[in-house]
């Protein structure tokens, strides 16, 4: 899964907020895949790869490395969570997140906290704001994933992923272009698919996508109550003929 929080200890004397917020690809050795990407050197003992060290914007390691500026070094206790090929984000307040793990069969892109439903049972109530840079961020993650780590299945979740509308189509196209064999599993409440243009465009964005849509009742009253939105059921029912 995405969003594995790894506890880490900033190297001695470094304040948590001294890290530059960034997303990068963690690798253990230099290869052509590093070119043009923000690279984190994943170091876990052994001989130092000097070429990689010179281009890496961060070193992720379990023990402090000599001669490396402390602001470039993340000392991580649970380094086993991070693999060669993992895509990781670090924020300035010192949180490290694994956004893609090449060894997992269950990767998903997290699109947004926003949602147009308000389900009574939701453990992750929607936030009203959509990040402006959501599309850029998602495309960044996709571009960081190495070709050799092409996932068999890639989930897309939220929040409600379709709230970023055309942006989602843009991301889907990027995924299909880079990883034509990857099956995309989109978790969506399906409401936006009642707009024919959107449904058609979504259908064309990827040949390998299936949309997982929850239905909470066989009639509108039950479903609409659970998602707290009148008309949600009828809009969902329209997916089939148009998509």
């Amino acid at each position: 899964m995405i969003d594995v929080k790894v506890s880490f200890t900033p190297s001695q004397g470094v304040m948590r907020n001294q890290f530059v917020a960034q997303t990068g690809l963690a690798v253990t050795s230099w290869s052509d895949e590093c070119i043009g990407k923000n690279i984190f050197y994943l170091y876990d003992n052994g001989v130092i790869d000097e070429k990689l060290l010179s281009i890496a914007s961060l070193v992720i390691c379990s023990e402090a490395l000599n001669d490396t500026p402390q602001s470039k070094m993340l000392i991580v206790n649970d380094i086993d969570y991070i693999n060669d090929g993992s895509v990781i984000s670090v924020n300035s307040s010192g949180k490290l997140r694994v956004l893609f793990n090449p060894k997992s069969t269950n990767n998903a892109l997290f699109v947004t906290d926003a949602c147009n439903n308000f389900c009574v049972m939701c453990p992750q109530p929607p936030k009203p704001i959509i990040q402006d840079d959501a599309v850029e961020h998602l495309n960044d993650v996709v571009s960081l994933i190495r070709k050799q780590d092409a996932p068999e299945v890639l989930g897309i979740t939220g929040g409600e992923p379709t709230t970023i509308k055309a942006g989602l189509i843009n991301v889907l196209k990027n995924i299909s272009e880079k990883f034509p064999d990857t099956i995309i599993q989109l978790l969506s409440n399906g409401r936006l698919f009642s707009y024919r243009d959107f449904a058609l465009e979504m259908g064309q964005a990827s040949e390998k996508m299936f949309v997982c849509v929850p239905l909470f009742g066989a009639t509108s009253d039950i479903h609409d109550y659970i998602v707290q939105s009148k008309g949600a059921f009828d809009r969902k029912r329209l997916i089939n003929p148009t998509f």
Partner: protein
Amino acid sequence: MQKFQPISDFIDESSYKLMPFKMSKFDSDYLISNDFGEWEVLKSDELTNLVNKNITPTSKLYRKLKSKNFLYSGNTSLGVDILASKLKTKKEFITDFSKLHIFCMTLRCNHSCIYCQVSRKSESANMTHYDMSDEVLSKSIDIMLQCPSDSITMEFQGGESLLAIEQVKKAILLANKKNESLNKDITFVMCTNLMHVTRETLEFFKKHNVHISTSLDGPQFLHNLNRATSGGDSYSNVMESFRLANDVLGEGCLSALMTTTKESLKYPKEIIDEYVRNGFHNIFVRELNPYGFAEKAARKIGYSTEDFLTFYKEMLTYIIQLNMSGTYFEESFAGLILKKLLTPWAIGFVDLQSPTGTGFNVTLYNYDGKVYPSDESRMLAETGDDTFALGDVRTDSYQELFFGEPMQLIASAALNESMPGCSDCAYAPFCGSEPVRRHQTQGDVIGHRPTDSYCIKNREIIKHIISLWTNGDDKTKEILMSWIRN
């Protein structure tokens, strides 16, 4: 924190409107159904309440009927798209015209089954008269490949198709060759009694992925009684061939059909046991069809529809018991009805379709060049009635064959949705239309339902299966569900 709206805010207004539906008696209850294949069994007072619009929006019944499109409420103009989609899915079989192409390779046969007195010639009859010639074969394949479907079944039958095995092999190779540029997906099926099949022939089937459909009518005494052969013991011959086929092609390579005669009616359990003993996991219980055997034979082997229904129900009961005790076994006809009742999907079985499968989903190429819209039409022609002969592959074009008068006649009675006795029958969405059979048994393609054995039989079987389903416990339902094939 935003407060949740209560469920009462989402309930339908109490006025609802009815969608078109059909109703038929179902013992003391009513079966209601609509063209989208949805159905429900209602008590008499529930039906009255439905029609009088007295069902309350919070009741279970209301929600059930609404979800099945028997009623709607408010401004659901959006529903039409959904209904169109449902209908399209149910009628999906009609797209791409004929998919089953039957090649009657020879009229010669080494059996003289009691239910097949007319449409056969003896094994030693003149091959040049009763086997398909190279010219007819080649032109028949051309017509088959002109049909629009990308996925077709080429089925060989006879007579006994093995007696013309060299021609069958030629047909498979030729079809593959002609298909090279078209790249259609062709499934080959060999209908054969398998008598005297050779290892070499079975190896050929294996190489070309030919499926085998054979016949087994029950235990030895019954099988031999129904299926007489000049050598005497058909059963022993067939068993030997089954063993050889399993040896070459592997266990489970065969599927078998049984035909019910008057004598069969006494042995429902024994027939099933025979199938289980031979490693089969399914049976297709077939009623004797009314085509192509003499009146004299009808008296000897025939029976009433009621007798068949009793027999069929006994078989189903026994098969369900078998499954309960851990032997997986299915009855294929029930499986087809269940698929219609319980899934949104269409079935490919041509005898239960509306528009009829006759001519629209099947084409038969006879050994003599004649083309028919079904095997039944061919048998009818063998008895002297060529009403449904579509033409000849040697002289007629695709257009002449498939847009001529016989096809127009079939089309005129193809839709049970518009047929008297069917149009308002709640069983119709799960049934089919059989113009050729009605022409044969009732004198015209439309027919008269109260005396129509096809109607009586199907209605009762559908009703019985609905009863098994609605009254069945979880285990029974699980068994019935497992019979639904893709």
